[in-house]
Every structure is written in structure tokens, then in C-alpha cells.
């Protein structure tokens, strides 16, 4: 069995025709993933017992003639910021190195109900803070496409396992681009759904007004299928949306996209590195060839988005991360006489440099005398950024942009300049600020063979329109290397 080449359709067919059982598939997928993992460090740990139990349940359902679910037997990886009952969930942090959640995230419950087989948990930047996966306490992930380069971040491990073939699909989380940017760097599809489309119950909180869970896959169709399985209202998350869940598979059935109005925001193309720009321009030609109407549009507040985003996300992070104080979550500094020393020492020893930097920034912008100047101002600018998109979607059905200004960079290359690293998130944070659905779909490779992703953004809750366009693009050979 060549597990690296399996996809959801082949697994479905293989199980239905009894060519292999879910248990055989799971044990072979685990063996392969464990053998390949040292190349990339993409998995932090595996959960063979849980995987085999899930596979057995699929086989039992098949034996009884029941529907085993949309993702029956499919090997899945889950980013290690998403809670898995009985399976370590470290958030890439020393602080949670031995934390074992007492419950499953809703997305994990739904994955499993759909027959998905979770092989293990994937590496990421500590508490999902980073754009290169170099902020993990357990070492960086290497990009399977070019091992001396970063996979992107923060969901670098989830992107890498899908690119490497050590999982068929994976779950990641996105606060400012943490799904789309690594998808772009590793040459896979990554989807950030509408804010509230997927329950965040059990997602370890980073910046609650921006956090999303979303899928990674090698094709648009498989990403749509995974989203179908995990999306929808969940009473355990009061921010999860009641919006009816459409049939995403109907959106990727090859329906024409002729006449779709696609906007190119001029602010996203002005400083673009030439190779990335050329590839996106070719991608736009493919869309034109499919009959899309391409329009020049403007999102005038784009230049303010990074400042806005890094005020809001650090403010929320400083509050969310206050809970790691040595009382409840596994790690406590051994050298504290008093409670307040214990808090300070535990946090000082436990958090890595980037988490500390963001806690400091967030605490600063929320501190007395600065709240109005920073946080309130940023919340107002966020309204303006979101309004830019609402205005644009009166003229167009979808917006197409690059995902990142450049392809995957070398490990260590940008580590010493935090502001420069923040600035590289320019094209992805706006979608999170507005809460709209967006994805990265492969759009060719540079001369050096590095993948480049094209971003598609649509109106709130219009993931179907986004998938339709991305699927048509993919079918037209948009991702041909």
C-alpha cells in the first residue's frame, strides 16, 4: 500500500471494495508517518491507540453495512493547539509539554464522527504565534519541498504533513494567516472559513476575535469535504454561527465560473516580489480563461492592517495567556516562595521569546493611559478594514491576491527581526480582521521550485463560492508546476 499517494476517494473505494481495512490502512499510515517524520519534525507526537480504535470503529460500521462517514478511514493530523482527550496537547510550548486535555475539541469530535483517523498532533509556533514555525519549543519544522526552508507558520506542521504525504488532510488554526501562509509555502490547499463557521470549543485560545480552525488538503475538493465534516453551529461555542451549512461538495462538482466577477485589489500588488507577482498574474490569466470578469478594485485601508492586527491580537493574547500561571496547567517553577513569585517565575521560564514579546506588547497597549490610543483605535481601524471588504463585495463576487509577498524562506533568515516577520503577514491578516472566508490554492512554483499560493476571498459565509472558484482554477491546471 502506497499511503503517500492515497486520497479520500481512493480510500473510500479501497474500503468499499475490501481491498484493505481501515485498521490495515491506519497501521500502515502510522508506520509510514513515523518513519518519514524525522525529515521534517512535522509531527510532535503520534496517538496510535486512538488511531487504531477509530479505525476499528470504521471497520465495524462497514461490516454492519452502515455508512462509515465522509472521512471513513482517512488519516488525519491535528495541530497541537487543538484539544484531544487523553492525547498530549502542547501548543508547541514548554509550559504545556505534558498537558493532557480532559476533553476533545468539537472539530475533533466531528472529525471522528465522520470516520477520520487521527494519527497524531502537529508541530506549530508556540501558542500559534509566528509565521515560520521556528517558535516551537520542540524545534522548527522543515519544509518537505525544500528541507533548508521554513514551512510557514504557525500551522507549519499541518501543512508539512499534507505536503509530505504523512497525512491525507489536517486541521490547523488561523489567526492572522496561520493556515494560508504555510499552505502556500508547502504547496497545498489551506482554508480559513468564515469567523464562527467552525466551533473553536477546545481550540487553545490565542486571540479570540480572530481565531479560526480550518482544513489543509492536497486538493480543493478534499479541503471542502473536511470543512463539511467539522463546520456548523455548536452550542459549546457561543461565537459559532447559526448560518445554514451548504453542501460544499456540490460547489466542487465542476460547475462553471463564467461571469464570476473577480476583484484584484491594487494595494496587494504594488510591492510584490517579481516571481510571486508573475505567478499570480498567470493564475489570474487562468481565471480569465475560465470566463471570470477581472476588475481592478481598491481596499484603501490595507496599509493600516498590520498595525491594527498586532495591537488587537497581542492585547487578546496577553489576556488569554494569563491562565498559564503555574496553578492549573502542568508546569510550575520549582523555585517560588510565594504565589506571586510562582506566577512570575513559571511564566518567565515557560514562555518562549515570541510569546513573551506579544504578552508584553498586549499588556502595554491595554495598560492604563494607553487603551484609547492603541486598542480602541485599532478596533476602529478594524471596522474600516472590514468595511473596505463589504464595499468591494458590492462590485465583485471574489477577491484574488497573493498569500505571501515571497515564497518559503530559509530557516533562521528572519528570526532576528520580529517587525519584519510581522510585516510579511500583510496579505493574510486582512481576511481575519474582516472575518471573511479565504483560502490558499497552489499557483505554480518559482524557478527554484518553491510553491506559491493564490488567495481567494469571498463574502461572509460564502465558502461555497470560494471553493467553486478554487476548484475550477485547480481543474484548469492552475497549480501545474
Amino acid at each position, binding site marked *: 500500500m502506497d499511503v503517500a499517494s492515497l486520497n479520500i476517494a481512493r480510500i473510500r473505494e479501497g474500503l468499499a471494495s475490501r481491498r484493505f481495512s481501515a485498521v490495515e490502512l491506519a497501521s500502515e499510515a502510522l508506520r509510514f508517518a513515523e518513519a518519514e517524520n524525522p525529515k521534517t519534525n512535522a509531527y510532535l507526537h503520534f496517538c496510535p491507540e486512538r488511531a487504531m480504535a477509530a479505525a476499528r470503529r470504521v471497520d465495524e460500521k462497514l461490516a454492519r453495512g452502515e455508512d462509515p462517514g465522509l472521512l471513513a478511514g482517512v488519516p488525519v493530523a491535528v495541530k497541537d493547539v487543538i484539544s484531544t482527550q487523553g492525547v498530549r496537547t502542547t501548543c508547541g510550548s514548554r509550559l504545556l509539554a505534558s*498537558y*493532557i486535555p*480532559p476533553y476533545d475539541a468539537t472539530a475533533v469530535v466531528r472529525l471522528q464522527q465522520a470516520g477520520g483517523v487521527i494519527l497524531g498532533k502537529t508541530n506549530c509556533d508556540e501558542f500559534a504565534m509566528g509565521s515560520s514555525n521556528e517558535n516551537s519549543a520542540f524545534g522548527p519544522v522543515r519544509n518537505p519541498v525544500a528541507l533548508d526552508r521554513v514551512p510557514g507558520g504557525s500551522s507549519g506542521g499541518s501543512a508539512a504533513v499534507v505536503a509530505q504525504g504523512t497525512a491525507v488532510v489536517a486541521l490547523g488554526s488561523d489567526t492572522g494567516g496561520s493556515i494560508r501562509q504555510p499552505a502556500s509555502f508547502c504547496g497545498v490547499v489551506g482554508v480559513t472559513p*468564515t*469567523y*464562527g463557521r467552525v466551533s473553536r470549543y477546545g481550540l487553545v485560545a490565542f486571540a479570540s*476575535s*480572530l481565531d479560526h480552525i480550518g482544513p489543509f488538503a492536497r486538493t480543493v475538493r478534499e479541503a471542502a469535504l473536511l470543512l463539511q465534516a467539522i463546520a456548523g453551529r455548536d*452550542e459549546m461555542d*457561543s*461565537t*459559532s*454561527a*447559526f*448560518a445554514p451549512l451548504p453542501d460544499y461538495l456540490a460547489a466542487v462538482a465542476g460547475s462553471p465560473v463564467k461571469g464570476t466577477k473577480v476583484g484584484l485589489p491594487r494595494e496587494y500588488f504594488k510591492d510584490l516580489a517579481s516571481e510571486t507577482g508573475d505567478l499570480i498574474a498567470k493564475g489570474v490569466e487562468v481565471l480569465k480563461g475560465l470566463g471570470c470578469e477581472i476588475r481592478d478594485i481598491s481596499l484603501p*485601508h490595507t*496599509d*493600516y492592517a*498590520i*498595525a491594527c492586527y*498586532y*495591537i488587537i491580537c497581542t492585547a487578546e493574547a*496577553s489576556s488569554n495567556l*494569563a491562565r498559564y500561571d*503555574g496553578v*492549573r*496547567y*502542568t*508546569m510550575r517553577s520549582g523555585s*517560588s*516562595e*510565594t*504565589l506571586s*513569585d510562582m506566577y*512570575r517565575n513559571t*511564566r*518567565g521560564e515557560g*514562555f518562549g*521569546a515570541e510569546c*513573551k*514579546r506579544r*504578552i*508584553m*506588547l498586549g*499588556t*502595554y497597549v491595554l*495598560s492604563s493611559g494607553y487603551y484609547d490610543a*492603541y486598542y480602541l*483605535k485599532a*478596533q*476602529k*481601524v*478594524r*471596522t*474600516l478594514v472590514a468595511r473596505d471588504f463589504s464595499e468591494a463585495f458590492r462590485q465583485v463576487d471574489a477577491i484574488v491576491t497573493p498569500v505571501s509577498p515571497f515564497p518559503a524562506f530559509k530557516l533562521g533568515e528572519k528570526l532576528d527581526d*520580529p*517587525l519584519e516577520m*510581522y510585516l510579511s503577514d500583510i496579505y493574510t491578516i486582512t481576511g481575519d480582521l474582516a*472575518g471573511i472566508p479565504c483560502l490558499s490554492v497552489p499557483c505554480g512554483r518559482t524557478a527554484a521550485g518553491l510553491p506559491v499560493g493564490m488567495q481567494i476571498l469571498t463574502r*461572509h459565509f460564502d465558502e461555497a463560492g470560494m471553493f467553486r472558484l478554487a476548484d475550477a482554477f485547480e481543474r484548469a491546471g492552475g497549480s501545474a508546476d
Partner: protein
Amino acid sequence: MKITEEEVRYVAGLANLRLTEEEIQRFCADLGEILAYMEKLNELGTGEVEPMAQVLHDAEETATLRADEARPGMGSEAAVANAPAAGAGFFKVPKVIER
């Protein structure tokens, strides 16, 4: 923008973060640079703009509270299972006040 050592120490105190001397120096520079970049927002007049207090605030599909009904919790045993120190279903901490 200049951030002083005193400011960094003050903010670290608010955040309950023990920082090394090296980290304090580093954060003086980093915070200064990043906060200077954030001043960019002052180019925008936002007097009449509503702050976004809730994402998708105009979408009726979002934002509700469930009925206020009692439900069983996970129980104290599970809740303290990850604690570095616990006993009898409670979290144990160092002394809080001097007697």
C-alpha cells in the same frame, strides 16, 4: 518611539512575567520599534467610526447565549488532573499571605 527599562519592568510586572536583564534590554528595543510602527494608525481620522466590538456584528446568525440551565461539569478529579500540585480535588498553591 523610546521605551525605557522602567516601562518594560512595569509592564512585565502587570503581565506577571519574570524577565532576565537581557530580555529587558531586548524588549526595550523591540517594543520601541513595533510601537513606533503602530503610530501609523494616527494618520487615520476615526472620530465617527464605531469600534468593532464583535466580529460579524451585523450578521443575525451569530452571537447568542444558550439557555441558562444547570448541566453536569467534568468533575474536580478531571479538572485538577493536569495541576502541578493538587489534593482532595483542589489546586495547591504556595502561601498567599504572611501570617
